């Protein structure tokens, strides 16, 4: 579907900001209406282009956060303090503003409702965004594929989509959500804050014998660590898909 839609080339489309939602101290969701949006698969991204009045422009890629739904496209943007595009998207955009986008892009790091196998999602920080699109798409499609999310964050207040994840963990049949904290733990949490390791993985993720498809998204060192842990635990590298953003992945 999305693949066929971009065969003829990808045009820039002027979307309109419908809604702006603060997710955490540094993450914002922008809900866009994009006329003629061709639809997208969960996990795909798009390019956003900002143009200054004198014609200077800058573009960056952002993961799409929502399940395909007509012309509605949601982006969750983590504001990087020295970023070129993300601070403007986080702070400078108001409801009603136009925003140019081009997409969807990428056909590898995607989950489609036709997939029936168990799925292990592993997110570091704002790497949760494309994985949330998968969780939302699964729910919308009424898919029965077993899903587990392991979401590593610095602190409880850094969890993006916190309320929705708690709710879905209760209501979405076959979805499990586990958190890991690297700096600050919530009250009563039994494990000291630390980076994910083999023990966390064993406790919270789908065992390799069930042959889950694994999707890992986050900063590069996190993805390297998580992917290596999965392989060491016995997961087939061919079933692990990764998406990384580097220190300059603005």
């Amino acid at each position: 579907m999305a693949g066929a839609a971009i065969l003829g080339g990808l045009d820039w489309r002027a979307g309109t900001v419908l809604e702006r939602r603060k997710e955490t101290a540094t993450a914002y969701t922008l809900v866009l209406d994009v006329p003629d949006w061709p639809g997208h698969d969960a996990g795909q991204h798009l390019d956003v282009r900002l143009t200054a009045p004198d014609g200077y422009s800058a573009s960056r890629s952002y993961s799409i956060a929502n399940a395909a739904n007509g012309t509605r496209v949601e982006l969750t943007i983590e504001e990087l303090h020295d970023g070129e595009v993300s601070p403007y998207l986080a702070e400078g955009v108001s409801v009603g503003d136009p925003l140019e986008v081009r997409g969807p892009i990428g056909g590898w790091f995607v989950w489609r409702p036709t997939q029936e196998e168990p799925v292990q999602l592993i997110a570091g920080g704002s790497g949760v965004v494309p994985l949330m699109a998968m969780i939302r798409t699964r729910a919308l499609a009424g898919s029965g594929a077993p899903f587990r999310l392991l979401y590593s964050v610095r602190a409880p207040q850094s969890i993006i989509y916190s309320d929705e994840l708690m709710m879905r963990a209760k209501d979405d049949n076959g979805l499990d959500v586990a958190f890991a904290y690297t700096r600050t733990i919530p009250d009563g949490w039994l494990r000291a804050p630390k980076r994910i390791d083999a023990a966390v993985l064993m406790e919270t993720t789908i065992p390799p014998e069930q042959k889950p498809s694994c999707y890992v998204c986050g900063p590069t060192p996190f993805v390297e660590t998580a992917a290596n842990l999965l392989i060491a635990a016995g997961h087939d590298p061919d079933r692990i898909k990764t998406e990384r953003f580097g220190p300059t992945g603005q």
Partner: protein
Amino acid sequence: MSEEKVISKGFVGHRQAETAKLPPGQYVTHDFPVLSATPTPKIPLEKWEFTLTTESGETRKWNWSQFRALPSVQITTDIHCVTRWSKFDTSWEGVSIDTLLDGVASSAMYAMAHSYGGYSTNVPLADLREGKAWVAHTYGGKELEAEHGGPARLLVPHLYFWKSAKWVNGLTLMLKDEPGFWERLGYNMYGDPWREQRYWGD
């Protein structure tokens, strides 16, 4: 493309000094970001092998010590990633593709690079010849790290960097062009950064 760009009120951006070295839509980074679609394969040198396959199916193979015995050259070049970062004056050492192709009988016009882990990417053969491409084994004076494609990666710096296949283990010569991994998934067949050939149809 829409004819008129939409103006983003109040957007200034981080303008970098204009430089003839920077292709359109790119920004300069001083880091070396990692982008890979799969886990990083660990390839022991004693198991490493590079295979050149012609369109008629003839092969030439090099193990690591045979490959490292080939003449290496030093390359200083700018690199341009489709995710919009460019890095200037990166220094590499590698074996020229001309060296690997020396004496090979072929009328192929295209090549598919293959990698450990299953990655592939297509490049016209003319873009690999005459000192334009290498199989690089050294970066910044050190053995190329696995994260960045070691033991060896293809280096075709005049095309977007996804063409510079990490963990490369072979080249297959082809009479007709065929899409590789990203080229099947929406990315441009050629990938010239100066013409901003990022995606299909660009």
